[in-house]
């Protein structure tokens, strides 16, 4: 709200009470005095965020950033060739050798002396900008060596062959030189190791010229770490550490560390506590961490498969990519090791011939090709992910690649470690309001340059003091500059009104139909159990409304012996029957509330009222909540039939299978308007739909979608007929009630000048161009945005994205959670493909397809999805591959793209030809829009594991539990064996398929029945047996369940089970009556691509 620059929201003053003149007509004659303007009292004074002691910085040691100053040392001549292989070599150590200490001019001339060996076409850099531009990468080794007194030993010379490096034009490595700011250049790309956010103190001499990146050890499977690649990187680190006084002894450990870091892929995964380590790391260039593939990817093709097309085929334009100078044999092998991995990302994969492209572990996000110490600071991909980790420089290039550019966010995810800053000042850019972040550059101690708009800002006095180290004068070591994800305690400038108390209003459908389903028992009981766990403080307020064809309010006035029900039957003109006591303080009235929750389920058992006045009930709830804001939780079991917002059944059951004429658009704007009203008053509406018949979720869903709520759908909920749903509701409701919540939130996503966001996906209201209004924010919601390149990003080496979420916590503190991500800019199409993140692309396309099916038709959306694959693969074929191969080739990074798109086409949201209920389809579409990417991918492409042969080998150990990690299988019946049992994890549902000849051991020890025939038809639980197999299986299943906010039901099925068809439908790679098999789909694509 108070996000500066956007105070435009239709905010009513806090004190505006619901002054309802109509109250005078109150049927039950509540003694309401109209003269009383019904002011909602300020429940609490403005709460000042408690000041936290510096100790609250629990920022993790994992993100340690080193003391850059050490590195800035004169010895950092980056274009030096690697030095001989002994790290203890006196030459590098004494490196701050005369020539390094030379003034820049001398340096330049020294460098120029080698310019003669520049390859033709690469003009030698001009003297004045030599420092900032990178000499051509293809510079032969000889040229480099001229900088050094010591010649390149045969064991040390590194070929400057790097994909991204060599394809970039000279000069593009270094951060664009800004006029007048010579010293600030931080280089972000890998080849140049100097650190980020590094204030160049006046002591520092200008940075010497940068040279081609030594090719270091690329990421490798963990087993390879100790092998030759390791030695290789040792060389590199030694080579680059010339100015460093660190002892040679630590080399090995450093390299090891860094390898782990790369392998782990996680940003926060590897703490380096040793004080020396970070220093060393700064200068180490470990080569390309691109692409960090899980081990399973490293050898995706079986031996002898066409994947090994040989170097010639793999790198058709190899001459461009690899300027491989003549090298000694050692070299060659070492660098080849690097090559094979580095290029894995771009290796063309013939999809028609590689059968087993699915990795055996879950796919990880690609690691951006950034210099490692920057990458280490980068935002966790679970929170912030971009579809292209190499941002194309121009819109033309982006259009050529035919891939969508966008971000996927999970900004409020529960984090185990989150640095929280309590500071009197929050340092932000004065022009674009960007929060200071690890990717800004410090010009000197007193000035920093914004990485989004490039404005130079002053560093405030207070910021110079680092509360963590208690040192003055180190602004670059403050937690704000060390963490890409950070939370600020916001001062009062960030509030338009005092932080609101947590207010929860529950609205229950109590019509005959609702009572029949028996949901009220479950919900009231769950609520009763979790009343104390509701996030909040002493100010928490709670209220209840029930409705059928009339609306019932409950007065929970202090002093009453039992709750008092007030019935409002005038649903055309809803009013609040009394000004107070409908929303009451939870702690002070707990007994009365518990009393109500206990009696509520019994109160309506005799009800014969079948009508449902949802619209008026929502209006009443809105009126009740609007003075404070908060959360409305609505339980609805049927189509609303009376009053405002009444809906008509629109579904034609016999048309379910066709994609034509289905109603995906809302039938009325009532819910949308109400949602926007709610949004304006900081009220969010969460909808629980428990309905057997058609309830027009397309219309109802709007109430949550635009008020930033969430939708839960329990199809055909019934406490007796469908008991598994009861457990699901209980578990999910518990999570819903107890999870973190943020109130009156706004989110802004900023990106570097030149990029612009043009479309938003998710549940919120876009209040102004880039401000998302989120009355409530919950940790289970994901968002997506689409971007375009408005102005070409020339001269930019990296771009950054920052999302800032300002919210009021349930404790009444105003907080700002900031995530910043930094990505490199590339100029060639092959680099764009190299950095493609196939999961993020699929997720974004799914969001776009939902929009398309609503605005146009479902078949349009399906065509668009297929075209997305065809277009990108043909663009790849025509623009990147110079040798046309037969078959269907995809870059390695996109090898799963067709599979994922096929999975999307077979997903409930987009499938045709099967009998999908309209509400179910729309619910899946809501989920596509609102789920974080991880869960969306799981729902789209389920995971299949064999579970009858679980072993403890490679198992995870969490809290003394051993969790087996079976490999992922492809989703094809061909992978199933009759002797096995398989677990399919489809996100919100799990199937355990037991084969006919499954081992007796599994059936008796895990399922607890004597033989296959006696497995019950509708088994949904694994019995708790004390056998090792049972413990293992249950540990695995519950581990899978714990990782997500919803509760997947486990169905145990065998061949004749009715649910087998659902199981088989999730077998994406197989053919169904109405959908192509994976191979057929590939053939179809191939046909289109080769046209």
């Amino acid at each position: 709200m108070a996000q500066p620059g956007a105070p435009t929201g239709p905010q009513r003053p806090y004190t505006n009470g619901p002054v309802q003149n109509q109250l005078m007509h109150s049927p039950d004659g509540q003694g309401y005095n109209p003269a009383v303007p019904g002011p909602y009292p300020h429940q609490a004074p403005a709460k000042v965020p408690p000041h936290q002691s510096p100790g609250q910085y629990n920022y993790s040691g994992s993100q340690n950033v080193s003391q850059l100053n050490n590195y800035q040392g004169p010895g950092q001549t980056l274009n030096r060739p690697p030095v001989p292989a002994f790290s203890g070599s006196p030459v590098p150590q004494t490196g701050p050798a005369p020539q390094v200490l030379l003034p820049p001019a001398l340096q330049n001339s020294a460098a120029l002396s080698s310019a003669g060996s520049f390859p033709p076409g690469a003009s030698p850099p001009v003297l004045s900008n030599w420092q900032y531009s990178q000499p051509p990468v293809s510079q032969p080794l000889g040229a480099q060596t001229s900088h050094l007194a010591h010649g390149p030993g045969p064991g040390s010379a590194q070929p400057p062959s790097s994909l991204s490096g060599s394809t970039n034009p000279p000069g593009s490595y270094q951060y664009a030189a800004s006029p007048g700011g010579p010293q600030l250049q931080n280089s972000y790309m890998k080849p140049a190791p100097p650190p980020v956010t590094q204030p160049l103190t006046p002591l520092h001499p200008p940075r010497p010229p940068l040279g081609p990146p030594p090719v270091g050890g690329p990421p490798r499977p963990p087993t390879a770490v100790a092998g030759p690649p390791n030695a290789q990187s040792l060389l590199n680190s030694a080579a680059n550490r010339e100015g460093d006084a660190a002892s040679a002894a630590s080399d090995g450990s450093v390299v090891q560390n860094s390898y782990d870091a790369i392998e782990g892929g996680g940003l926060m995964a590897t703490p380096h506590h040793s004080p020396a380590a970070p220093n060393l790391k700064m200068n180490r260039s470990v080569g390309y961490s691109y692409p960090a593939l899980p081990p399973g990817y490293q050898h995706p093709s079986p031996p002898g498969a066409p994947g090994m097309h040989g170097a010639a085929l793999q790198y058709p334009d190899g001459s461009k990519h690899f300027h491989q100078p003549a090298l000694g044999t050692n070299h060659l092998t070492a660098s080849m090791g690097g090559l094979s991995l580095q290029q894995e990302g771009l290796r063309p994969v013939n999809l028609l011939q590689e059968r087993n492209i699915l990795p055996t572990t879950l796919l990880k996000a690609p690691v951006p090709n950034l210099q490692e110490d920057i990458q280490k600071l980068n935002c966790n991909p679970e929170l912030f992910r971009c579809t292209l980790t190499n941002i194309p420089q121009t819109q033309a290039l982006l259009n050529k690649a035919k891939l969508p550019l966008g971000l996927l966010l999970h900004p409020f995810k529960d984090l185990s470690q989150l640095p929280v800053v309590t500071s009197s000042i929050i340092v932000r850019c004065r022009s674009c309001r960007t929060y200071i972040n690890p990717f800004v550059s410090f010009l000197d101690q007193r000035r920093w340059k914004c990485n989004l708009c490039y404005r130079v800002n002053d560093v405030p006095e207070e910021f110079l003091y680092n509360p963590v180290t208690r040192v003055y004068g180190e602004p670059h070591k403050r937690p704000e500059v060390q963490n890409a994800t950070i939370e600020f305690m916001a001062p009062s400038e960030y509030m338009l009104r005092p932080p609101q108390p947590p207010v929860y209003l529950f609205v229950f459908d109590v019509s005959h139909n609702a009572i029949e389903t028996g949901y009220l028992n479950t919900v009231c009981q769950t609520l009763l159990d979790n009343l104390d766990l509701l996030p909040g403080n002493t100010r928490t307020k709670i209220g209840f409304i029930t409705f059928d064809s009339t609306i019932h309010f409950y007065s929970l006035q202090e002093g009453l012996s039992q709750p008092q029900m007030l019935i409002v039957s005038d649903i055309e003109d809803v009013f609040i029957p009394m000004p107070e006591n409908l929303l009451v303080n939870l702690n002070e009235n707990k007994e009365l509330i518990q009393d109500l929750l206990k009696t509520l389920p019994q109160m309506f058992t005799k009800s014969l009222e079948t009508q449902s006045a949802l619209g008026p009930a929502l209006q009443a709830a809105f009126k009740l909540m609007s003075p404070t804001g908060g959360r409305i939780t609505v339980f609805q079991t049927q189509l609303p039939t009376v009053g405002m917002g009444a809906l008509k059944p629109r579904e034609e059951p016999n048309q379910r299978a066709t994609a034509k004429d289905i109603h995906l658009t809302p039938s009325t704007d009532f819910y949308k308007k109400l949602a926007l009203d709610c949004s304006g008053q900081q009220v969010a509406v969460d909808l629980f739909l428990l309905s057997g018949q058609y309830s027009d979720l397309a219309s109802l869903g709007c109430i949550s979608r635009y008020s930033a709520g969430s939708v839960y759908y329990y199809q055909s909920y019934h406490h007796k007929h469908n008991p598994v749903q009861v457990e699901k509701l209980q578990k999910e409701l518990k999570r819903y009630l107890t999870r973190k919540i943020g109130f009156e939130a706004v989110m802004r996503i900023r990106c570097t000048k030149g990029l612009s966001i043009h479309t938003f996906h998710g549940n919120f209201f876009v209040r102004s161009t880039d401000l998302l209004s989120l009355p409530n924010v919950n940790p289970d919601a994901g968002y997506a945005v689409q971007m375009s390149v408005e102005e070409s990003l020339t001269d930019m080496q990296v771009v950054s994205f920052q999302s800032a979420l300002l919210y009021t916590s349930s404790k009444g503190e105003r907080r700002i959670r900031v995530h910043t991500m930094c990505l490199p800019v590339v100029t060639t199409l092959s680099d764009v493909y190299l950095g493609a993140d196939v999961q993020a692309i699929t997720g974004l396309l799914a969001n776009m397809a939902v929009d398309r099916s609503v605005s146009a038709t479902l078949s349009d959306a399906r065509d668009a999805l297929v075209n997305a694959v065809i277009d990108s693969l043909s663009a790849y074929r025509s623009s990147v591959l110079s040798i046309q191969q037969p078959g269907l080739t995809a870059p390695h990074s996109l090898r799963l793209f067709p599979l994922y798109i096929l999975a999307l086409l077979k997903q409930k949201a987009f499938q045709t030809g099967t009998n999908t209920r309209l509400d179910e389809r729309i619910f899946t579409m809501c989920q596509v829009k609102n789920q974080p990417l991880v869960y969306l991918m799981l729902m789209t492409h389920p995971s299949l594991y064999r579970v009858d042969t679980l072993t403890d080998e490679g198992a995870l150990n969490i809290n003394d539990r051993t969790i087996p990690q079976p490999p992922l299988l492809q989703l094809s019946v061909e992978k199933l064996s009759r002797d096995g049992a398989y677990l399919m994890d489809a996100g919100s549902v799990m199937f355990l398929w037991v084969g006919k000849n499954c081992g007796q051991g599994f059936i008796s020890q895990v399922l607890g029945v004597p033989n296959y025939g006696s497995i019950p038809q509708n088994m949904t639980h694994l019995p708790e047996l004390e056998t090792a197999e049972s413990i293992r299986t249950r540990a695995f299943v519950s581990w899978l369940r714990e990782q997500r906010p919803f509760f997947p039901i486990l169905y145990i099925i065998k061949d004749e089970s009715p649910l087998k068809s659902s199981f088989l439908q999730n077998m994406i790679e197989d053919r169904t009556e109405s959908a192509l098999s994976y191979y057929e789909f590939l053939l179809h694509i191939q046909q289109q691509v080769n046209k």
Partner: protein
Amino acid sequence: MESVVFIFSLIDCCALIFLSVYFIITLSDLECDYINARSCCSKLNKWVVPEVIGHAVVTVLMLISLHWFIFLLNLPVATWNIYRYIMVPSGNMGVFDPTEIHNRGQLKSHMKEAMIKLGFHLLCFFMYLYRLEW
């Protein structure tokens, strides 16, 4: 008679020009964050029907007074206005929907449309003026 027709058209055209300018100003206010999407759209939606009617009236008038060329010139724009109004999905809050205006470049296309209409109305204005004097 002729002059009455054109005097009326002229006045109507002026009104439409003002309306186009109002649309452009309001949309650019939204672009610059001076107003929020909700109020911008409710302001604009109020004027969609008057615009449709205003333009339809001139078009019909030209048909009745048998000015074929001017009628044919106006027809496509009038048809587009009516089409746009009719084709609003049932769940939307009008031609300008606050929940979608920031998506998929809608704001820009609305802006472009208002510009084109402004140009068109100016052209018509001078045409009517010319016919009036002639």
